């Protein structure tokens, strides 16, 4: 065994140690991107300076919602759309923990949209990894708030017409401290972005644009074809004009990836701690 293979092997074993392989086979379809993103999350944890036992994962409902159950971390599989407020409670009560929300577009931006925008506004010190597969896969492929216009889903058989969130543009406009977009085909970049996220005090967000068999089936894109699509269309541009990075079904339109935003607005939890120190310091200790 060569030295390189040995290093690689150790890394794989370590990652496996963070996964609850006894729960396998997992529920995800062959060719789905969620598993790769989860592996990247595990790898980023191992590479982070934060002890494994300080990492917490919170997921909602749906395909991506099952992620928490496959990690050997304190994990929470909560009600549909509510992983963010749940994580906010955890983080506020235990600011020493590194809390990551790992969930999907339907959960986070459709049913849970209100919590999402307010967590960014408050700048809660949590990480959010959002798998965007454009659809509600687990219930058979209904449209979500990130379904591209024109796409066929179970509930838009003649093409989707409602309008679509340009996710990085929206999250950046809301004021998040970190905004990135990657795909499972860019596992090294994604891992590094997650590592970056752990260092951020405040709301950090990564959209993982993911191939989805359910979505592909309804739009006559075979799984392998979908991966080719991703490879062909992806363009890395960290300085992209975010108003132009919305996703569409047009095969000639690029899927723009990158680490788009990095800010250092102090988080709610930091500001809270500072406020308390100030009040206690100057308030004479009476309540």
């Amino acid at each position, binding site marked *: 065994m060569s030295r390189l293979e040995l290093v690689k092997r150790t890394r794989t074993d370590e990652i496996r140690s963070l996964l609850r392989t006894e729960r396998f086979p997992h529920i995800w379809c062959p060719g789905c991107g969620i598993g790769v993103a989860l592996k990247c999350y595990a790898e980023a944890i191992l590479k982070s300076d934060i002890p494994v036992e300080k990492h917490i994962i919170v997921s909602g409902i749906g395909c991506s919602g099952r992620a928490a159950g496959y990690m050997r971390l304190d994990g*929470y599989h909560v*009600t549909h759309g*509510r992983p963010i407020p749940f994580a906010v*409670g955890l983080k*506020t*009560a235990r600011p020493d923990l590194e809390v990551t929300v790992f969930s999907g577009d339907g959960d986070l931006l459709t049913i849970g949209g209100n919590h999402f925008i307010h967590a960014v506004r408050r700048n809660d010190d949590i990480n959010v990894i959002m798998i965007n597969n454009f659809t509600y896969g687990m219930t058979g492929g209904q449209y979500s708030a990130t379904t591209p216009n024109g796409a066929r889903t179970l509930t838009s058989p003649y093409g989707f017409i409602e309008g679509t969130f340009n996710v990085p543009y929206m999250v950046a406009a809301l004021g998040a401290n970190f905004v990135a977009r990657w795909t499972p085909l860019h596992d090294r970049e994604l891992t590094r972005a997650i590592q970056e996220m752990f260092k951020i005090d405040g709301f950090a967000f990564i959209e993982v644009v993911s191939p989805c068999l359910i979505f592909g089936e309804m739009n006559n894109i075979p799984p392998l074809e979908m991966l080719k699509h991703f490879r062909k269309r992806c363009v890395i541009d960290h300085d992209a004009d975010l108003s132009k990075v919305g996703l569409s079904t047009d095969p000639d339109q690029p899927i723009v990836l990158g680490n788009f935003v990095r800010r250092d607005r102090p988080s709610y939890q930091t500001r809270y701690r500072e406020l308390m120190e100030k009040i206690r310091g100057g308030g004479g200790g009476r309540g």
Partner: protein
Amino acid sequence: MRSELVFMLGGPQGAGLETSAQILTTSLAHLGYGVVSDREYHSNIRGKHSYVHFRASSEGTPLALTYPVDLLGAMDAETVFTHYHDLAPGGFLVYDESQEKARFDRIPSMGKELKARLRREFAELGLDGTLGSLARWLSERGIRLVGISYPDVLSKLAEKYGLQRAQASRYVSSILVGAVAGLMGLDEDAVRAGIERRFAGREALVEQNTYLASMVAETVRRMHGEPLRLESPAEPPGEVMVASGNDVVALGKVVGGLRFQAYYPITPAADESFLLERYERVGEEASLVVLQTEDEIAAISSVIGAALTGARAATATSGPGFSLMVEALGWAGINEVPIVITYYQRGGPSTGLPTRGSQSDLFFTLFASHGEFPRIVLASGDHLEAFRDAVEAFNLAERYQTPVIHLVDKFLANTIATMPVPDPSGLRVDRGLLAEEPGEGYKRFDLSSTLSPRAFLGAGPVMWFTGDEHDEAGHITEDPELRAAMYEKRMRKLELADREIPPEERAVLYGSRDADILLLGWGSVKGVALDAARVLEREGISVAYLHLRILEPFPSSHVRGILEGFGPGRVVAVEHSYNAQSAMLVALKTGFTVGRSIVKYTGRPIYTNELVDAVKRVLKGEERVVLSYGA
């Protein structure tokens, strides 16, 4: 001299009525009197008619409010038009005599239904619709008029302190304070103490309001004497506090070790969180986080998250907010998370009567969320109970590892009362079964006992939680045998609680098992039931009261035993609802049919006088009496 006084102050919302109420309550408390007051107000920001109904006594804190009133203090003409029925024969009316030409049908803030009623009444009485004609009519019937020209008094104030006229109009609250103080012969220092407390640190306001109140008190005293003077308090005043129901729940939560409260603003619950916000700085090491979330779903979700870290966590809400929390309540149920929901009932359904009271959500709290899981529902009858229950709610939640719903209502929330400072020495903090040094083999949902020891997040072992059915480690399972075992383990916690919590603490009998009649109630019915019992006792009718304090787990055999002693025809359910849900609950849990009911669903509290009359009607054979008194 009298031992108690019932009075009312009314005026447009936002015009300083609450200021008058606070000053008078504090002053009376300073002098050693017991006071209870209820604020009734519209769901609007300012301008609509609101009033505060008081009862003060030289023999401790009165149990409930009653009609008629001995004194009506009116900021405006609308108050007189709205409440002239409420005055006792020989009572006093304080009003603005410069408003005598004001007509009821020209008052923009007055509702058209009330105008229509007044039009009919005034036509019958031959009155011309002006305040002056109504005042004269009242005077002819023995009501004593205390007419004061508010503009004249205010211009004296304005002259002395160089205030603008518009500024001076904000001091009307102190005219009422002065008039009440004068008629009651209240000590000037006590009134000043009330004013100082209200305007703490704002010397000019203290000075100006004291001047105005003293001037009015002196004038009133000169013209009318001190006809409403109360006897000296029976007992020398010990240490008392003046608090609303919202306040006492907040204090109880702090004493009970609350560390995280998340809420979304809603009437009548939010005042509790506002007070808690001020306690964020309590203590040196631990802090209390109060988080106003984007909605009630976020509130309860973050509370569950915080509770799993080991923090005592709670939320406070009302019906519409609880409706949004229901799904997450089930998540806490299946995951055995100790959370406390303080539920302030108001008039429903939907937005209903946001600022008015109700007891119509008992069944909602008992059955809310899909599926079956244990919950504990407790309801408080008065301020002291609410304080203790706020502490006890955490103990029950952690002992039985399940959500606890603490039911109170708008009546309790907005009732400001004197009360002894609660003695916390008898209270305990029971965190339930905790895992000692949980290691690798730790299983959060260990099936070997009904209560599995809790470990807090970050304590060592890795833990999983899911809203799906789970195995002992918390992993998703659909295995039928495991499902049944886990289901039974959860449900057995309620049976355990039923065995462990003494039934006589869950349903408390006041009075004798041999009484003529038994009133059955819960929550804020307690005060008025006991007060009515006292009045009826004096008339030779003996009344007992069974107070349901913990409604789940329900003390079935204890309650059945008491009720069967009376028999269906002598048990009367009293409730602020249409259905008398407590009677339905008793039937469900005991098989006993409560044959009589006295209900009220106008959104106003049940008053002693109307409950006394209703009990007499029931004794004469009526099965159901619907109450409606109060503007």
